[in-house]
């Protein structure tokens, strides 16, 4: 269960949002919406613990995330605005390396299956620099296939993807919610995700 209250974000001299609070139960999905520059990405980075909140607090299962530290990071999967893949490495190497670093090593077979599911069969041994934007995004999203951590924070997961891939990723998120996971995502595209409960949070500039 993820709970926030009274969050405030200040970037530079500008207050992006204030008084943001929500409560997300297991199996629920939260859509973050708002215009460009309204602070969606900042809010996601706050939920990860990368960006300290100017005010307010974030509780994971009733405890502040700052105090949980490594235990919270073990429960969390963050997909940022950048793909976090290395251009010089192949999709397979990228996937396996990020899994080892996240302390969830994958078998090579599992990694290959994950890449195939995202439509990257036949590309697993090609350096990522030769892939298109959409394919790079798919490599980054392939992490989700074997991801069993309860909280997913996804920043624009569908950007640069074609319709088939969007559907596939929506299915992955749906399956995650069915397993009782939580997901927070920002998107500008309306996407159907089979979830128990969908909440929406609209960030409006200068909320007080």
């Amino acid at each position, binding site marked *: 269960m993820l709970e926030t209250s009274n969050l405030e974000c200040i970037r530079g001299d500008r207050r992006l949002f204030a008084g943001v609070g929500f409560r997300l139960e297991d199996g629920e999905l939260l859509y973050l919406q708002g215009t460009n520059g309204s602070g969606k990405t900042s809010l996601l980075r706050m939920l990860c613990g990368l960006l*300290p909140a100017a005010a307010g607090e974030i509780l994971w299962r009733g405890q502040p995330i700052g105090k949980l530290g490594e235990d919270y990071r073990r429960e969390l999967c963050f997909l940022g*605005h950048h793909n976090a893949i290395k251009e010089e490495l192949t999709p397979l190497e990228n996937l396996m390396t*990020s899994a080892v670093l996240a302390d969830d090593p994958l078998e090579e077979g599992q990694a290959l299956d994950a890449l195939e599911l995202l439509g990257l069969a036949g590309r697993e041994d090609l350096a990522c620099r030769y892939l298109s934007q959409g394919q790079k995004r798919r490599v980054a999203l392939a992490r989700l296939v074997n991801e069993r951590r309860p909280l997913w924070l996804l920043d624009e997961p569908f950007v640069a993807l074609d319709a088939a891939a969007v559907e596939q990723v929506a299915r992955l998120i749906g399956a995650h919610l069915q397993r009782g996971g939580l997901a927070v995502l920002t998107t500008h595209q309306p996407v159907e995700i089979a979830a128990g409960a969908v909440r929406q949070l609209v960030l409006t500039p200068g909320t007080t």
Partner: protein
Amino acid sequence: MLTPILAVIVRDLRLALRRRADIASVLFFFIIVVSLFPLGIGPEPEQLRKLAPGVLWVAALLATMLSLPRLFSDDHRDGTLEQLALTPQPLGLIVLGKVCAHWLISGLPLTLLAPVLGIQFDLSGDALWILSCSLLIGTPALSGIGAIGAALTLGVRGSGVLVSLLILPLYIPVLIFGAGAVDATLTGTGAQAHLSLLAALALAGVFFAPWPTAAALRIALE
């Protein structure tokens, strides 16, 4: 505890092998700077021997500086640094892995090249041996201390110059004891004391520097 360190080392070495130009540019810089001195000063063996320890060590410092700005900037640009900061391991351990990889990519090749370049300065076998030892012990300290500067200047414009201004003064002790060790061999007073102090600096550099580096990276990621 060793798994994340090893995983980062393997990843960074693999990346370095796919981008050999980066390693080569550092090594060629070292070779050229060191080779310019005998050409500029003239072939007086006595004078060259006297200059050799300082020249080789200063060139090694500058070559290390050259590779520092890239230590975290690539990972920062493509978002992998964020992911590294969000892994369940302490960020300090991951930085330690990156420092070890940096040493394997820059410090170790410099150490291996130095005795070959030392021949240009008419150094004796003994002095060449101590030169290699001092670089082998001293270069890990350069990587460790340099990581702090690289993290502090992450995302800053003109970080290359800034990192030199920040880090070169901190390299002075390493330079004094490193060049001093070779000097002591040349004058026959024995290099043991210098090498011991250098080893102490290296241990402190490699095992304490990752923590302030990790703190600086967290600030850079905000």
